[in-house]
Structure formats: structure tokens, C-alpha cells
């Protein structure tokens, strides 16, 4: 390995070796025959599409579950982890995609929480934190309150937490998913610093350009197994993409514009207040026309969820009005709004979209429990609901043995396709699509985009909220940026770049994107931390 800092260390055992790891899970492809060797003092990237099994693999390595087969070697010694604390004892730490931090505590308190035995909770701990922060160039102040910090800082605190516990190998699970491009660059500088100090970083991502810029070695995972190991200097994003999906990467794009003049949903001055009376959606005015997809870009927790819930009648609006086809729906109940022709693809399908323990055909009724063909009067129409579920399964290519399986048995992508099929039934006028392709495999992703395009061509008005900037740029006719509950910018999706969008999302210029973005939405973010990767 040419990237090891000195010749001596080439003789050192590998930091981590995984041999023949197999992990079986109900219903979804997990891992089989995984072989990865990670050299010490390198950044090793593991790439793969959503649902390819990256997170499962890392949970295995971090001791969150045991592999069914295979062995794990740390510094040449075989180990067995029964829990994450075993992994930490062997110098393996993990920074999760969703931060595990307590907002109301200081940085110091968050770091020492659960590791009080290391250096106590007082002066020793503080000086150790300062030492680590200086050594790795993290720039973390131990006495700041966590809720004052932006996403980038929070991530550095998470890294510090792991270092504080003596980790020599750090796993970063999709660390860039919550960052804007400028913060990503900072993170990469930190990673290079860690590497220089001799630590090993395992970096999980599905964003190829990032991986190419930071990694020393890349392992590609497809359908639960390792398919190749690549040297980033000798490979291109296109080659990696081909390895990842076994074909071309689908690109979201719209063809000709289908936007009409007819306004379907109109919001004027919509303000939603949090229980603490803080405006979480602040004076939002927005028109969505027939045949138009309006995208909302923003760092998670900037009022997107509250905006959706306000539209769906699940959250009270402090001021402002929402009209649907000219009718004031501001004070309508959720059911009435749905009956009026509003479809809803929720951001967290397990919480809001499906009944996991009910069969698919009963899930067809959910949200449509007052409409044909699922019900007749106040009676459930089993035959009707079943027949229509069959239709959804075939039209939306839901991979399931039949409609009697419980929703939980399907993979996330298939659950999502079923939800979309359901929300598209009954001729909706307007669709709220929140992260429609989150945690969904590549095939399902392009199918979902195609369905949205078709519905748009048929005259559906769509509000699209996503964390995937490519998806937003590719699928939107109009693109707004939301920051601390306000629509701060409108971008032209035909010309805007993800970098420009990211800059607008932090409210900063193109440079100096030090994000203090979540100040307005950190509370809301906490409620959105549910893993929605379909159990992969």
C-alpha cells in the first residue's frame, strides 16, 4: 500500500480485516462473503448504493450485531464483538449518520457521557479534549452548549467522542449526508489530519466524487457483497458507478415542461410555531401549479417537516392561509384534506406511511379509509381493497409474493413503491413527496422518478422535499431553498449546481460556509432522526 506513511508500517498488520462475512436478515439482502482489508493510517472508502449493505456491514464491525459467518481481525488478531463496547475496547469507534448528542449538554458533557472512567468529568477531561482537538485540528471548544453548534461542528464533536474513547479506527457512516458541500470539504480536511496522525478511517458513502477525493483505497459493495477494490488514482467515477450498480447510474431528469397556469396549491404567509413559540415555518408563500414539481432544498431540520405537516393538516398553523384549487383548507382536518385529493408520501415511511404488521392490502386502505374502492360506507370492502392492491403491486412493480404479506416483510424500496402507488390512487390533485427515494435501491429509485414524471405529465402538482440535491435539481421545475423556516432563495434548476445550492442552504456565500444553520431547527431535527433505510 503506497499510501502508508512510512516503509516500516507496511509490515504492520492490517488495521481491520473482514473475511467471508455473511449476515442474513429477514426480507432484505444483507451481506454475504464480504472480504475487506484496511491498511493502518489510511482512509478506506466503502461505496455502494443505498441498500447495498454498507450500514449492515459497519454495524457488524462495530459489534451492533454478530455476523452469521466469517471472521473479523483487528491488528491481525481475530476478535468477537458482542456489543459496541467490545469494539471500542479494540479501538474501533463509529460516527453514526444521525448524531447521538444531547442538545442541552455542553460539548465536554457530551464527550465524557458514558466514558466517565477515562479521565473523569472535570479538569482532566477538559484538558484531554483540548489536547485531542488541537492534535487533530478539530477546533472544538469543550464549553460550548451543543444546541449552539452547527451540523459540521456537531460532527466534529462526534469524531472527538470516538477519539476520546481511544479509537484508532474510526467508522464514518455516510458522514456527508447531512452536510452541505462546503462543510464536506472541512470534514475531508479533518480526515486527512486524522490520517496524518496515524489513525485509520473507514468512510462509507455512495457519493463517488467525494470518495475519489478523500480515499486511499475504495471497496465497492453491490447487493451485499464486495465486488471490487479500486485505487482512486487509477479509476473514474464512471467506472466506480458501473461497479456499484452493475450498469449505468440513473440520473433524475425532467423532459419538456408541463407546467400550466392553473394554481393547485397556494400558500400565503404560512407560519408555524414550535411549542416554545419559535417560528419553525416562517411566512412561507408558495404557489404550485398543475403539472409542476416544486422542489424545496434545505438542510434537514429547517422547517421542511413542519411545512409538510402544516399542509397535511397535522400541525396547527399560527398564521397564513393554504388554499387547494381555490378552497381554503387551512383549518381542515387531515382526512378532509386527503379526501380533497392530496396524496402524501411521508418522509419517514415506517412512522407515517405503513402499518408494518398489517398485510399489504390493509395498508392499501390506510389514508383512503373513506374512499372507494377500499370501503363501502362504513364497511371495509375487502374485495375492492384487495383488487386495488393487486393493481398497485403490478403497476408499480412492488416485489412481493402476494398482497397478504405484512408490510414489514418487504424491503424499503418495495414498501416505498407501494406507498407511492397508494398515494397516486384516487386521482390526487396534489402530492406531497418527502424524500421519495430515501433508502431505496437504484432500480426502485428510477422507477419512482419515472412515476413522478408520469404523474406530472398527467397534471399532478407536486411538492418535492429531498436531501438529495441531484434529485432536487433533476426533478424540479421550480426550486426553493428553505433556511430556518424561511424560503430564502429561488434557484433555476436548469442552471444551478449542487455547490451553489449548498451555499444557499447554509445562508452563506460560496465560501465561508461555516454552518450555523440548525439553530432554528435543531429541535425538529431530533424528531427526524429515524433511520429509514428499509432495514438493510
Amino acid at each position: 500500500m503506497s499510501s502508508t506513511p512510512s516503509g516500516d508500517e507496511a509490515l504492520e498488520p492490517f488495521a481491520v480485516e473482514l473475511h467471508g462475512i455473511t449476515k442474513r436478515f429477514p426480507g432484505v439482502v444483507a451481506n454475504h462473503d464480504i472480504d475487506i482489508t484496511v491498511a493502518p493510517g489510511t482512509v478506506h472508502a466503502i461505496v455502494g448504493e443505498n441498500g447495498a449493505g454498507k450500514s449492515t456491514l459497519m454495524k457488524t464491525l462495530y459489534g451492533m450485531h454478530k455476523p452469521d459467518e466469517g471472521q473479523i481481525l483487528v491488528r491481525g488478531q481475530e476478535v468477537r464483538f458482542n456489543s459496541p463496547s467490545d469494539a471500542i475496547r479494540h479501538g474501533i469507534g463509529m460516527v453514526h449518520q444521525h448524531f447521538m448528542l444531547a442538545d442541552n449538554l455542553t460539548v465536554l458533557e457530551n464527550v465524557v457521557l458514558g466514558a466517565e472512567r477515562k479521565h473523569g468529568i472535570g479538569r482532566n477531561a477538559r484538558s484531554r479534549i483540548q489536547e485531542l482537538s488541537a492534535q487533530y485540528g478539530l477546533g472544538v471548544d469543550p464549553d460550548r452548549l451543543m444546541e449552539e453548534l452547527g451540523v459540521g461542528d456537531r460532527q466534529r464533536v462526534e469524531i472527538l467522542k470516538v477519539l476520546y474513547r481511544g479509537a484508532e479506527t474510526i467508522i464514518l457512516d455516510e458522514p456527508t449526508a447531512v452536510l452541505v458541500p462546503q462543510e464536506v470539504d472541512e470534514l475531508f480536511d479533518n480526515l486527512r489530519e486524522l490520517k496524518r496522525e496515524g489513525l485509520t478511517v473507514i468512510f462509507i458513502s455512495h457519493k463517488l466524487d467525494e470518495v475519489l477525493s478523500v480515499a486511499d483505497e475504495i471497496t465497492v459493495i453491490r447487493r451485499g457483497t464486495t465486488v471490487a477494490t479500486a485505487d482512486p488514482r487509477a479509476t473514474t467515477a464512471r467506472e466506480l458507478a458501473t461497479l456499484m450498480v452493475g450498469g449505468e447510474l440513473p440520473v433524475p431528469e425532467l423532459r419538456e415542461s408541463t407546467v400550466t397556469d392553473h394554481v393547485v396549491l397556494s400558500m400565503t404567509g404560512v407560519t408555524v410555531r414550535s411549542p416554545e413559540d419559535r417560528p419553525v415555518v416562517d411566512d412561507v408563500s408558495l404557489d404550485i401549479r398543475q403539472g409542476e414539481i416544486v422542489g424545496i432544498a434545505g438542510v434537514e431540520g429547517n422547517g421542511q417537516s413542519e411545512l409538510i405537516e402544516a399542509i397535511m393538516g397535522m400541525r396547527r398553523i399560527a398564521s397564513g392561509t393554504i388554499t387547494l384549487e381555490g378552497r381554503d383548507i387551512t383549518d381542515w382536518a387531515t382526512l378532509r384534506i386527503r379526501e380533497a385529493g392530496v396524496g402524501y408520501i411521508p418522509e419517514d415511511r415506517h412512522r407515517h406511511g405503513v402499518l408494518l404488521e398489517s398485510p399489504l392490502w390493509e395498508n392499501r386502505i390506510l389514508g383512503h379509509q373513506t374512499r372507494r374502492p377500499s370501503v363501502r360506507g362504513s364497511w371495509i370492502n375487502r374485495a375492492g381493497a384487495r383488487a386495488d392492491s393487486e393493481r398497485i403491486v403490478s403497476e408499480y412493480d412492488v416485489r412481493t409474493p402476494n398482497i397478504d404479506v405484512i408490510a414489514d416483510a418487504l424491503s424499503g424500496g418495495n414498501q416505498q413503491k407501494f406507498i407511492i402507488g397508494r398515494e397516486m390512487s384516487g386521482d390526487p390533485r396534489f402530492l406531497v413527496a418527502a424524500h421519495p427515494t430515501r433508502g431505496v435501491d437504484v432500480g426502485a429509485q428510477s422507477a419512482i422518478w419515472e412515476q413522478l414524471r408520469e404523474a406530472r405529465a398527467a397534471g399532478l402538482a407536486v411538492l418535492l422535499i429531498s436531501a438529495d440535491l441531484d434529485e432536487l435539481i433533476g426533478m424540479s421545475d421550480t426550486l426553493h431553498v428553505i433556511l430556518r423556516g424561511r424560503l430564502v432563495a429561488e434557484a433555476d434548476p436548469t442552471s444551478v449546481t449542487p455547490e451553489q445550492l449548498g451555499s444557499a442552504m447554509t445562508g452563506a456565500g460560496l465560501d465561508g460556509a461555516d454552518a450555523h444553520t440548525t439553530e432554528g431547527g435543531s429541535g425538529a431535527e431530533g424528531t427526524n432522526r429515524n433511520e429509514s433505510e428499509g432495514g438493510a
Partner: protein
Amino acid sequence: MSNSGRRTVAAPVVLLLAVVLGVAATFALDLFLLWWAALLIGVTLAFGLVAALAPITPDERRIGADGTKEEGTPLHNVLVLPMSFILAVAGGLVSAWVLDLQLIEPVAAALGALVGSALAFVLFHRLAAMMALSFAAVLSAGVIAIAVTAAVLYFSGIAPFQTFGRMAEFGTRPDSMVQIINSSITYYLAAVAVAIGFKMKLFNIGVDGQYRLAALLAAAVGGYLVLPPVISQIVIIATAIVVGGVWAGIAGYLKVARGVSEVISTIMLNAIATGITAYLLSTDRLAVEISTNNIGTPPMPESAWVPGIPAGFLGSQREIYGLVFLAAAVGVLYWMMLNRTRFGFELRATGQSQTAAEASGVNVKKMVFLSMLFSGMIAGLVGLPQLLGHSHYYALDFPAGIGFIGIAIALLGRNHPVGIVFAALLWAFLDQAAGILPFDGIPQEIAVIAQATIVLTVVVVYEVVHRWGRRYQQQQIGKQLGRTVESSGEAQ
């Protein structure tokens, strides 16, 4: 599938063959053997025939209710087939035993074999893995509970099997059976009341207070208000429903409007109900002297009674409460409400995932209030079979604590309208059968130990088995889909 191009035998023909074989064998063997041994062999033969003919029986619907192709999977072979066999034999034996009370033995055995053989066919082809798993769970829980009780007896220096034998003998006496049925009618109503709450993840501990208050006021209405027959019963029942509903509705309202946990409020309301009944049940107010040391509401006129059903067919002089039909109607309504109505769907949806229900436009608060209300309305009925069918007044000795038994029975019956029937019968059987034990100098509390162990084991074993079964099934689905995904991937 496999039947294409091969000779097949139509399903009804197989059924007929199985039944004929089973009945004929039983009838013939009955001449030489004990009836149950003959029946066992007869049903076994029928089951064997069904199994042997299975490959050439065109039956495309041999797919489990949960959607996996089950045939040939290990689970199917080691669990579903034995379970269907056991259930077929058990069904045959029980029906023969019941029929034996009425008919002469050879006929009863033959008819039992008919039931058993038909069951053998139906279960062999239709029993879904999850159902089989549930039965297996209950069966193994029963075995564990018996073992624990036996151990307790053994270590107390009492011969376990002799004791069980005594209980079984006493519990199946005609008078005991009527008593068991009557108790289980009451238990059933209480358990359904609890189950409505459970379906919504609401814990109505207050059934006890609700039914006692409802029974007292209904008895007072019946005792003081002389009305023509039918109208009188309707008024009494309506009073009980209203009182139970109001009392539970208070807890529902507190939960919805003030966020008070229904567990706390219903416990409090139980205490208040105890106080109110004690206050009202005094000779200054609603009560009169019933006997020298008992006071109660004035006995109802005969026009308000609900006549019992003579239990001659069980060989007993006693009567089964007429309100058994009310309990049956409640069961049917509960099932219909839950599975066939929009309200029931919303109730189950809210119970499964409040967030998903909310996002789907279910008014969760309304559902909480209504289900609490309905639970209380059913709870109001609990005291009526006893009141209208037997005692005709509410006195100090009116049975208390049935609400808590209802909780155990709802757990035991998995909140299922049919499951609760069996749970209630089992509970009442243990209650009744234990009555003989003091005569043998055995502590009666043995029955309580058995009941508690059964509830615990059923809840635990059922949950464990259920979880395991679901995982297993998901794996099966994953395997099936994995294959199709793999093959379609290659085809591209």
C-alpha cells in the same frame, strides 16, 4: 404446476374418501377397542390418506395466509403437519365426547371420526404456518404450565397426576359444566371489554369498577321500576351499558383532554366506584334487607328475569344463563367491528402506529375516546348474566374482581373473539375443578397457581414463537424474492 399432465383426484373426492375411511375404520374398531382408541386410529388413517393423495390433489391455494409458499419448507414439515394432525385428532375426540352425552357410544364415536377426518383434510391443506405456530405456542405453554403446577404439587408432597385426575373428573361432571359455561359467559364479556382497549394499546383496568357500578344501577332500575317483560330487560341492559360507558368515558375524556394515563384514571375510578356502590348500597338509599345479614337492591319482579336454558343435554338439572346469546352477539359484533368496519380498521391502525394513523387522517383522540367508551359499554354488561339469570338483585355478595380476571383472559385469548371463548372456558374450568380439592385436603390455590402460570407462559411463549415465526417467514419471503430478483437481474 405439478398436476399438469398427471392424473389428479378432485379435492371433494379426497375429502369424501378420507371421511368414509375414517368413519368406517372407527366404527369397525369400536367393536374391539375403547371408543377413543378406535377414533384415534380412524382419524390417523384418514389423515394418512389425505397426505398420501396430496401430491395428486389439485389445490392451488396451498399458500399460507401470510403469503409464503409453505409446502416443503422445514417449518411446514416439522410444525404444520404435526399440528394439523394433532388438531384433527383433538377435534374428533372432543366432538365425540360431547356427542356421547346425548347419543349412544358407537354413533358418537363415528360422528366424532367424521368431524376428525374432515378436519384432517381441511387442516392438511389449509392450515397456515402462522396459525399452526400459534396453536403450537398455546400447546407448549399449556404443557409448561401443567409441568410447573405439577412441580409445585410434587414439592408440596401431593401426588400431581392424581390431583389432575380428580380435577378433570370433577370439572366434567354435568353440574360443573353448566357452572363453567355460566362463569365463562361473564368472563367472556369482561375479556372482550378489556380486549377492545388492548387493540388500541389502551389498558382499561377499570372494567371492574365499570361493571360493578353498572350492575348496581341496573339492578336498582330493575328492582324499583316494574315494566312489562322484554321492555324491562331492554331498559335494564341499556342502563348497564350507559353506566359502564359513562364510567369508562370519564377515563377516555381525561386521556384525550388532559393527557391523563388511562391506567391511572381507571384505577382511581375503580376506587371511586367501590365507594359509590358502598354508599348507595345502604338501607337509607337503594338497598333493602335481603336476609338477616345481607342487604341489596330489591329483588326484581319475574317479568325482568331472563330465563335460562335447561342444560338437560349436558345431563344437568341446572340452567345456562339466557344471556349467553348476548355474550355471543357481543363476540360477533366485536369481530365484525374489528375486521369489517372502517371504525375497526382505524382502531387497529391507531393501535399499531399512532403516527401512521394520524398521517392517514384518523382522528386519534376521537378513537381513544370512543374505544374507551365502547370498552366501558361492554364492561357494563359483565354483571348482567348473573343479575338477570340468577341472583335478580345486587347485594353485598355480588361477585367482584371479574374485571381483573377479564384482563388475564383477554391476554390468554390474544384479544381474539374466538381465542377469548377458549380462554374463558379454561379459566372457568380451573375455577370450578379446583372446588373438589379441599375435600381431598389439597389446597384450592393450586388452581390459582395454574391460572397464573398459564397466563404467563402463554404470553411469553406466544410472543417468542410469534416473533421467531415472523422472522422465519420474512426470511422465506426474502429467499423467494431474492431468487426472482437475482434471475430478473441476470435477464437484463
